[in-house]
């Protein structure tokens, strides 16, 4: 393993990689020396990543490498596991979200999340989308109507559901449910959207629709997407981070990662030699 030495000082490496991106974009998430343990298990090791605004950043890596853990750390969802311990810093818009004074609810209002399995609430389609605005205190029916329509349009599902907004969301197909979940997430107009394998439970056609949607959404939002599917990462992301055993092995422009990875392990993974 010749790259071992590089890994020993990941800061340097990631900075170097960041330097390779378009300089005019702002950094939305800056992760510094992040370490995370589940009890004794060291799940994230010295993560350093700077994620840009209005880009799609893909996170790839074999199962168990810590992708979900990382993305769930970005909105502190990982804290729902009681045994979790975290060290390091994650700066979101320059503020350390791991700071105790930072309210997770505020963070999660600005940072939306879409999960691997579509997880609509067992409520009507309308109520699903209106859920976020409502819990944040928006009661005005007219405003809610507007938000719902706008969000469903934003998630490219409006035409399919506009006639049955009051039906239960569980009547939708898996792909529709996932787009509904995206709409739900858009409804509170987040700044960043985290997506954890949003298409892994979907059929190819629905996958395509969600991928297109992601491409559109990046105009307005910053998107971080975890995926098992290398082709997907190549298709839709601007940057790609490759995780292995809880470490970031490589982080660079997607083109570069998939054409000329600088790390042997990245190459092995991308060419399907393991994982």
């Amino acid at each position, binding site marked *: 393993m010749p790259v071992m030495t590089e890994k020993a000082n990941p800061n340097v490496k990631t900075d170097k990689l960041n330097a390779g991106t378009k300089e005019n974009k702002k950094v939305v998430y800056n992760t510094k020396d992040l370490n995370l343990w589940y009890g004794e298990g060291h799940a994230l090791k010295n993560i350093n990543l700077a994620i840009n605004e209005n880009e799609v950043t893909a996170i790839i890596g074999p199962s168990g490498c810590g992708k979900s853990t990382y993305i769930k750390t970005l909105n502190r969802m990982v804290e729902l596991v009681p045994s979790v311990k975290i060290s390091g810093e994650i700066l979101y*818009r320059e503020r350390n979200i791991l700071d105790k004074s930072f309210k997770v609810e505020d963070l999660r209002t600005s940072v939306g999340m879409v999960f691997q399995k579509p997880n609509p609430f067992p409520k009507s389609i309308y109520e699903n989308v209106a859920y976020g605005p409502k819990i944040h205190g928006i009661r005005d029916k007219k405003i809610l109507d507007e938000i719902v329509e706008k969000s469903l349009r934003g998630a490219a599902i409006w035409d399919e559901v506009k006639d049955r907004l009051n039906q239960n969301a569980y009547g939708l197909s898996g792909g529709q449910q996932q787009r509904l979940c995206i709409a739900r997430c858009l409804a509170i107009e987040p700044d960043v959207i985290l997506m954890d394998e949003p298409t892994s439970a979907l059929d190819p056609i629905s996958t395509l629709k969600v991928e297109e949607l992601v491409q559109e959404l990046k105009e307005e939002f910053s998107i971080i997407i975890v995926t098992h599917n290398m082709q997907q990462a190549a298709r839709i992301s601007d940057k790609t981070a490759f995780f292995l055993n809880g470490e970031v092995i490589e982080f660079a422009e997607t083109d570069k990662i998939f054409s000329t990875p600088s790390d042997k392990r990245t190459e092995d993974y991308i060419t399907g030699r393991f994982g």
Partner: protein
Amino acid sequence: MKGVLHLAKSAVHGNNKKLNVREIIQEKKKSRSVNNVTEKLIPKILFGIAAISVLTTIGIVLTLLTETIAFFKDVPFIDFFTGTKLKPLGENAVFGVVPLLTGTIISSAIAMLVAIPIGLMTAIFLSEYASEKLRRMLKPLLEILAGIPTIVYGFFAFTFVTPILRSIIPGLEPTNILSPGIVMGIMIIPMVASLSEDAMSSVPNAMREGALALGATKLEVTWKVVVPAAISGIIASFVLGISRAIGETMIVTIASGSSKNFTFDVTQSMQTMTAYIVEVTGGEAAAGTTLYYSLYAVAMTLFVFTLIMNLIAQYISRRFREEY
């Protein structure tokens, strides 16, 4: 915070003039500090509610204990628990709890003599012999049996079972401990059956297959493998059944009369602890008399009895939880 988000907003949402949800949300957030208070208060309130169940137990113990202590000032502890004569009314009241204890134990024993074999056999049939279809048909029927109020069983014991038994057993008194004991057993059958069936159903099929592959008949599989493997759950169901029998009130109140004689003759009327409580509360309510305190002493005895049974059942099913 506000600054940052404004920044973000103008960067991303500069084009949307009509509706700016993010801004509205920020506005609302500011005016809703109440939220934090609720968030902090709710767990405390819920804890208070959860504590009520504990308070109920404490309440039961305290009410029983204070009056019981008063009772033992009048009647020596030893006399109460060894006295075979119970004559709570009239001039020379005597308080010996033994007749009530024998009444309770005998009625429970009769009940379990009915409930254990029939309940266990029912469980075995449902778990080992019945087809899925039959089981799905029979179980709800047993649930109905379990859901019938005890007063109905009392009526049944008094107006139906007793007359039948009396035509078979000539010496049987019109109120006797046998009939309510049997009916109590019938009442407990579904409980024993369903808990035992649960225990047997959780024995993995691999175990049955292992025995069947050795040429065992179903009976041999059941009796020598499944039942031993599920024995703790089965015994726990028996213990819970006993606890239920001890605490059962209306059936014995109606069908067993109120004789306080110390006897082991099941054809006679006997009184259980529960029936005594009903009789005394129904008949007497003036606080401060020994009779009044005796009510609590008996209730305390009953409470301790059932508590021990329940703890034993919990202990058995926890300690010997089947590990396959």
